[in-house]
């Protein structure tokens, strides 16, 4: 994927910055610019998630696309944050450790190392809390 595309959402990926609808109280990560409930009546502001949550479901990825191939096997999960928002992320633990309901917290980590000359992409993963 292109460098600008990573860069554009860098702050969101690094700090788990999403958005919040002040009208209905919903939190969004990935960030949304339009609240699906309130639509044009919603007031959207930036919101940095605390980063505490639990594993809602998971898989151990054994075969990945090229960018992630060196990392296999890795734990992929849907994490439910305390604010009630769910996102897809990697959990840094062994395949044996992960379970549904496992408490996790956010961690700043490298997502992709794109070879010697390429960009290194950082973002948020989760670790056992």
């Amino acid at each position, binding site marked *: 994927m292109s460098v600008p595309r990573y860069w554009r959402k860098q702050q969101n990926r690094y700090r788990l910055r999403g958005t919040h609808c002040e009208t209905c109280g919903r939190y969004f990560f990935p960030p949304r610019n339009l609240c699906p409930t309130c639509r044009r009546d919603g007031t959207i502001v930036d919101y940095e998630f605390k980063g505490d949550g639990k594993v809602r479901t998971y898989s151990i990825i054994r075969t990945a696309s090229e960018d992630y191939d060196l990392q296999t096997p890795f734990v*992929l999960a849907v994490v439910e944050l305390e604010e009630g928002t769910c996102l897809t992320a990697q959990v840094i633990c062994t395949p044996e450790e992960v379970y549904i309901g496992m408490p996790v917290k956010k961690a700043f980590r490298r997502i992709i190392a794109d070879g010697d000359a390429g960009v290194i992409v950082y973002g948020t993963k989760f670790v056992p809390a």
Partner: protein
Amino acid sequence: MREVAVVGIGVTEFGEKWETSFRNLFVEAGAMALEDANMSGDQIDEMFVGNMSAGRFVLQEHIGALIADYAGLVGNHIPATRTEAACASGGLAFRQAYTTVASGLNDIVIAGGVEKMTDVGGSVTTDALAGAADREWEGLVGATFPGLYAMIATDYMHRYGLTREQLAMVSVKNHANGAKNPIAQYRKEITVEDVIRSTRVADPLRLLDCSPVTDGAAAVILCPMEMARQFTDTPIRVLASAQACDTISLHDRRDISTLDATVAAGKRAYAQAGVTPKEIGMVEVHDCFTIAEICAIEDLGFCAKGEAGKLTEDGQTALGGSIPVNTSGGLKSCGHPVGATGIKQVAEIVAQLRGEAGARQVDAEIGMTHNVGGTGATVVCNILGV
């Protein structure tokens, strides 16, 4: 709205067709459908072609005109449109063709689908298919397409006690059906043992839980019911064609193990056709992964949530069961050329309703198709009857 009938079907052999080009795959299916309808290309008023990712797989866009051109349909300069909703691209083509005929806009419309997936390497295929989900917030953190369905399977097994063996039985049953289908990519039976010992892809899913990478094309011809007998003695009625959408990402769903878009498209289709799930004699569901068939059976109302594993284990979804599922072999055994799948499903139900399904024949008067894009962000359900 006018009553609509399917009067011609054509499906190429599915598989790794290294000797056949993208365009020729479709030409073959289109020619078979025209032949089947005793029709000439000049009679076609409009065309829709489902295709997910020719841009990635064969570096070709502008598929509508290309296909019309090589199918010999540009003489009359008919409208030719490509439809795309990932693996539900073919389903969209069918629904567009249906609404075009039903509305009276055009009379004879071809709905096709084509995908040529084996010209690129495995990692390109994996990456292209990951585009069926949210590239930015699922793919970019390492989610593969099998990985997303695997997360559905983990949640489902945890909540409903589905066993690894029951999941494997979906694949075993679909291979048993595919072994009887002359166009299927894998015409061979497999065992539960084969599935649970195959290579791990994304736990708990293994290689034989996953539909393969396939080249293939399919086409069907629709016209108003009142014209249908000019072309065939066995027109098949389109009783319903319904579509629904949902969040692009799995993590935003109300319930990980329920495809709400399947529920919505199913309900719309039942209402349009004026039937209940009990009246459906057989169904082609979108088994891109074994867990997807389990969810589909329940979300379409053939049993309660949590019971599809038992239904499968009891043989009720096999040929001769109370609701035969995927008589074609499904995506798993027949193959999954993504853009063609939604049309192949319709062709299978039409062949069944005409009594032309050979060793796979089910005695039924109403059949259904269920075609999913991504992890359930788009679903198309069709109901057909004699």
